[in-house]
């Protein structure tokens, strides 16, 4: 509430005419006092936000430090720093669980995520081009249907989809997780690309068409390069969503050597939570690292993508 107040103050200060009009009757000392007050407000602003940042990021910092705590300290030492730091947890985690080494879970997660990125970007771009740049009969109905699936709870289709993939004999393979990505089932990405494609000037297609280019050429050589930033946003998000996905692999993957990281973590959580907190927490941290890495590298990209398109994490 005080924000809008300050926003107008700074707005007035940046337009000299306005500031002069207001401060003239008061006399020369007034501007200095205002500057001083503003400095104080800025300091309070910084301190408040730093405190909030500390609270928000504390669970992650706690996780990082906990990976160096020996098992005996869990439940005993709720603080940040380990009393007797050790890297035993990392050594244990590297061995894996249920007879499967850690790198295998990592590799499975990576295969699923890369396939999700390729499938999502390709199929969503094709669908988005049709919705945004082609005037075909039925466009309105199908576009509305696509928006509808944006709001559809995924859980309504998990049972029939499971029965279907079970009938095809595809349970305990990656196909039930990969195939839907190649069929643009994540409406969010289609919608995001439609928004981008609609912003491209229409004369561009007209000119290309006069030169004899068909839709395939326009799509591939003109539109795709133009919406590259949006494609990258889609790629990053589909990677992270696939990396974090729990329900899909939980339903379809049954043998431990096929598990991606989240399901492997469940093994730690279910079987050893009372005895081996250290390994559980350390494996959790390792599973987060790629996402956190993506975030640090592409943060501006991700956050701006969210800001302009309303994409949720």
């Amino acid at each position: 509430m005080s924000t809008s107040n300050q926003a107008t103050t700074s707005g007035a200060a940046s337009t000299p005419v306005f500031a002069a009009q207001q401060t003239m009757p008061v006399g020369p000392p007034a501007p200095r006092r205002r500057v001083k007050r503003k400095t104080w407000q800025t300091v309070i602003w910084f301190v408040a936000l730093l405190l909030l940042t500390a609270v928000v990021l504390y669970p992650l910092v706690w996780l990082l430090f906990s990976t160096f705590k020996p098992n005996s300290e869990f439940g005993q030492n709720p603080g940040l720093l380990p009393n007797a730091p050790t890297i035993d947890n990392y050594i244990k985690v590297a061995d894996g669980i249920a007879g499967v080494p850690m790198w295998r879970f990592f590799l499975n997660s990576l295969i699923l995520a890369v396939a999700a990125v390729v499938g999502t970007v390709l199929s969503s771009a094709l669908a988005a081009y049709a919705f945004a740049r082609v005037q075909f009969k039925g466009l309105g109905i199908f576009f509305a249907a696509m928006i509808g699936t944006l709001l559809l709870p995924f859980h309504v289709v998990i049972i029939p989809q499971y029965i279907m993939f079970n009938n095809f004999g595809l349970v305990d393979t990656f196909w039930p997780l990969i195939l839907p990505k190649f069929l643009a089932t994540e409406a969010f990405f289609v919608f995001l690309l439609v928004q981008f494609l609609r912003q491209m000037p229409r004369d561009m297609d007209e000119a290309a068409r006069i030169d004899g280019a068909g839709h395939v050429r326009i799509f591939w050589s003109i539109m795709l390069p133009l919406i590259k930033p949006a494609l990258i946003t889609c790629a990053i998000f589909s990677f992270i969503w696939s990396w974090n996905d729990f329900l899909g692999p939980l339903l379809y993957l049954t043998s431990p050597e096929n598990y991606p990281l989240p399901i492997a973590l469940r093994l730690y959580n279910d079987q050893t939570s009372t005895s081996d907190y250290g390994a559980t927490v350390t494996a959790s941290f390792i599973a987060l690292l790629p996402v956190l890495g993506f975030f640090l590298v592409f943060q501006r990209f991700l956050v701006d993508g969210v800001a302009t398109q309303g994409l949720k994490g």
Partner: protein
Amino acid sequence: MSTTTTRVIVTGDKRRRSLVRRSRPENLTRPGQRRRQTRETLAGYGFLVPWLVGFFGLTIIPMIYSLYLSFTRYNIFQPPKWIGFDNYIRLFTNDPQFIQSAQITLIYVLVGTPITLAAALGVAMLLNYRDKGAGFFRSAFYAPSLIGGSVSVAIVWRAMFGSNGPVDSALSSIGIDLGGWIGNPALVLPAMIVLAVWQFGATMVIFLAGLKQVPKELYEAAEMDGANAWHRFRAVTLPMLSPVIFFNLLLGLIGAFQVFASAYIISNGSGGPAGMTNFITLYLYKRGFADGQMGYAAAIAWVLLVVVAIIALILFRTQRSWVHYAGDNR
């Protein structure tokens, strides 16, 4: 630089309007135009093939099949047996677990989402005060949204809110001795709601983008009219932001209904303690995949769908009275 309050137009759906505008050229009937139209239609459906296969094969047909299954008894090994409305009758009259599951899910959704939105809006307004330095905080607050639904974070939450965990010991040290939240039926739902609120960042980023679009002149005009900070918030910020609030509320409510991994991990798949994390999605999963009652689980899924649809409908119906769309033609 004039203050244009007339720009606020109460009705009008941008999307629909642009569709109408775009489809107008189709009505022309010059010779050759029709052949071109056929070619366009062919091209359109050609590009749509993957989406159409997914839409019908993985969404529409499965939905119809799941509606059929919800009227049957089915365990995947024997063919489905038609039992009429029995599943639905059992759900609402003879299944206390379902009633509890529906109650805690509704509490989680209807308490957690507004708190998340309020926190997101509050922090967004704080960040909007200054541009310099705000980028860092914006990114820092956004990070939890990317990972909040993951198994890793759920494991962290279990440790943070467990007995003798950091939250327990911090509260104990100031004299509030609650014990562990995760094992306490009264406190595990609050711990889940805190986890939801922790992920306010994505919503905040969208609010912040919305706040940047509010014309400064509106605030200046309101201030000249003698409006105090609260009045300016009520009369300028909230109405100008209402489309963004609508968007965040709709997606927030629908997303909250679908929380699964956190509840599963925090309760070790049991939905406990005392069923207090047995969210509707977890209950559906347990019935369908642990107990093999696919027909019954399909009925739960359809109840979920109907509830989500009703909430979406209420929001869309009431938006005319509280959502203001700016009428600029950009």
